[in-house]
């Protein structure tokens, strides 16, 4: 046992000290944070406050100009198209919208002039503003007040409640799906990254021929287990660093680019151009979204300790199961190119679970397919983690899945150990499946 510990220690320390590990540990969280922060930053920076001039010959905006939106504001210019164009050429407006004299039931002939291309969002905004104005005119003709109509529009949130033996539990499918994906993806990516590291490590020892020296001191099984456990430690360290650093970085970032602050900035800028009241509405709306999200998180009533606990279990269990198999592959081949034929059957179920998860697991988390996938050790680490956040997994299923996974990795480690002890001393031979199966039954 102490030798396994020694080996695990070496595997851990040599990997953690590598530059690539340190870089990965820093880049991972930065990428995660960037994923969320960049859209916000872009939104903050790109809107330079575009101004659209309106030549309103048709009188569509006679009583009021469209409300500024997304930092696009509107201003009125001469209703005569030719003078408006002349002015536009000299002026500093970004676009010129011409409203012709129109028949409100069949409006046509709107024109937008711009110096450069308009850009999708600006065009959309102008289009929307015009549509809305036309709608308003029509509503007025029909004698309907805009406000009355707005009040009639429904904006309903469904609160989904799962009924189980424990009583009613409200859940939020959106949040559950997000958590399911994050858990599933993390397990998937870590099994791949660290499984392949085990394989490479074994191959390195084999091609370096150090293995013969080492296994004259320890049993091949100890060497393999030490490697698997040491690399597991590296994986956990990386995960922990990612979580801690991501939280650290995002909390620092949040201080400078919180949505509230952006809204304030925007309000300050837009009021200078047009009217103040509307932008405050905007901010209020945004705040509403934020509170909705936190409410959803709360109302989802996720069993957080259970999910975190199970995540750690399946993370480790899945890794040990696949790690042992990857180790066996590494021992059976001489070079990276030979790994392909053996990698396929090992990685297939892993990839399959992840692909299938979209179609089946998250849409029908308690169906037949989901049930079986969360039992078989090849697929259960990902499948079960994608079912759990939706709730409704009976305790016996979870227990059975865990027991099967433990049995699975004990079996996988036994199987890998048999292959490994023969494989690491086998050089210059292309190994076939038939041969592998013979290795299983070799004596000591």
């Amino acid at each position: 046992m102490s030798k396994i510990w020694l080996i695990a220690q070496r595997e851990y320390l040599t990997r953690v000290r590598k530059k690539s590990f340190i870089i990965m540990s820093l880049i991972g969280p930065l990428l995660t944070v960037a994923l969320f922060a960049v859209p916000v930053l872009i939104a903050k920076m790109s809107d330079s406050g575009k101004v659209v001039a309106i030549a309103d010959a048709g009188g569509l905006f006679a009583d009021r100009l469209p409300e500024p939106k997304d930092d696009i504001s509107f201003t009125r210019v001469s209703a005569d198209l030719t003078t408006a164009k002349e002015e536009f050429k000299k002026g500093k407006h970004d676009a010129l919208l011409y409203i012709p004299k129109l028949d409100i039931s069949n409006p046509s002939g709107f024109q937008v002039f711009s110096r450069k291309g308009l850009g999708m969002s600006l065009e959309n905004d102008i289009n929307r503003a015009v549509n809305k104005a036309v709608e308003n005119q029509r509503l007025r003709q029909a004698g309907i007040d805009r406000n009355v109509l707005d009040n009639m529009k429904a904006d309903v949130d469904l609160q989904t409640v799962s009924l189980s033996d424990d009583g009613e539990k409200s859940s939020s499918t959106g949040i559950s799906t997000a958590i399911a994906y994050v858990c599933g993806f993390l397990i998937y990516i870590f099994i791949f990254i660290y499984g392949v590291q085990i394989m490479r490590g074994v191959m390195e020892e084999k091609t370096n021929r150090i293995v013969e020296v080492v296994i004259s001191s320890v049993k091949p099984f100890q060497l393999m287990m030490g490697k698997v456990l040491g690399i597991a430690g590296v994986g956990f360290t990386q995960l922990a660093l990612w979580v801690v650093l991501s939280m650290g970085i995002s909390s620092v970032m949040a201080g400078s680019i919180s949505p509230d602050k952006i809204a304030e900035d925007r309000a300050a800028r837009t009021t200078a151009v047009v009217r103040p009241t509307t932008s405050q509405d905007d901010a209020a709306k945004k705040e509403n979204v934020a509170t909705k999200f936190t409410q959803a998180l709360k109302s989802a009533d996720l069993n957080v300790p259970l999910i975190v606990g199970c995540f750690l279990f399946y993370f480790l269990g899945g890794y040990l199961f696949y790690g042992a198999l990857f180790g066996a592959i590494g021992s059976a081949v001489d070079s990276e190119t030979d790994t392909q034929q053996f990698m396929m059957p090992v990685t297939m179920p892993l990839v399959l679970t992840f692909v299938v998860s979209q179609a089946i697991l998250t849409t029908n988390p308690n169906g037949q397919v989901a049930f079986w996938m969360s039992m078989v050790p090849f697929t259960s680490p990902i499948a079960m983690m994608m079912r759990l956040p939706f709730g409704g997994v009976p305790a016996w299923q979870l227990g059975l899945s865990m027991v099967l996974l433990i049995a699975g990795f004990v079996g996988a480690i036994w199987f890998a150990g048999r292959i490994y002890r023969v494989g690491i001393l086998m050089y210059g031979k292309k190994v076939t499946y038939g041969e592998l199966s013979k290795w299983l039954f070799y004596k000591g």
Partner: protein
Amino acid sequence: MKPILQAIDVRKQYANHTALDGVSIDIPEGSIFGLLGPNGAGKTSLIRIITQITGADAGEIRFRGEKLNPSHIGQIGYLPEERGLYKKMKVGEQLMYLAQLKGLSKADAHGKIRYWLDRFDIKSWADKNVEDLSKGMQQKVQFVATVVHDPTLLILDEPFSGFDPINANLLKDEILALREKGVSIIFSTHRMESVEEMCDYIALINRSRKVLDGKVSDVKNAYRNQTYEIEGKGHLLVAHPDFGVLDQKKRENDHFYAQVQLHAGTSPNDLLRYLIGAGNVEVHGFREKVPSINDIFIQRVRETHPDYVPETDSVPA
């Protein structure tokens, strides 16, 4: 002398190949034991059983009279034919790791590593990565890794391959010094001439079987065949009732070289007397032709396998 290690009727069978077919050897304590044989004879298979990398299918290995078991690992040092170290690990850390795997405590290992690095004058390498060392330097480090835990039985598989002549000599002295300290050494090689002078005992292995073993001097004595080498001036008559000329070569200026086998009842002095007297040659050199281990091996193998062709490059399974 009491054997430190005994192999008793050891058998090892691979899928379609018998690696060892009932091999028995005794390694006397404090000696250098040559395990000789061509490539693929089964030497490495035997060594892997002794180092407990694999197990024997049948037979037994005894270490100091005890059945070989994992508690003996710390007493055995093994230098495999295919050398290998972790390339990206520092020399000092690597030695520490390998010593600890052999069961040494950190403090013990520290002192011993120091001693050996000093001895080979390679202390300044301790903080270098192995991949930054030359091949010869790596070989030295590998040797230190083999002996750092003070093994009582040292197994060296082709120890001189990859060493330049100077370092080979250094290594040879080191091996002899270890024997002086009482370490028993198994020396495995297919280049028999290279170790003849160092070995006290030998075993010859061919095609999974031991064909010959014993003390080097005894083996050689047993294979002496009353043949003498003569160098001189003049010309040696071919026909004589007391001896037969096996081979005679003419050299420049009326010189010659000849191998002469004495018939039973004739002593080397009789031959000398004849040469000086009736033979009418001027003798420049006269010595007994002792068969080399290589000669003995080939002779022995020809006796058992008349169709023997020396193997050159079969792959050990």
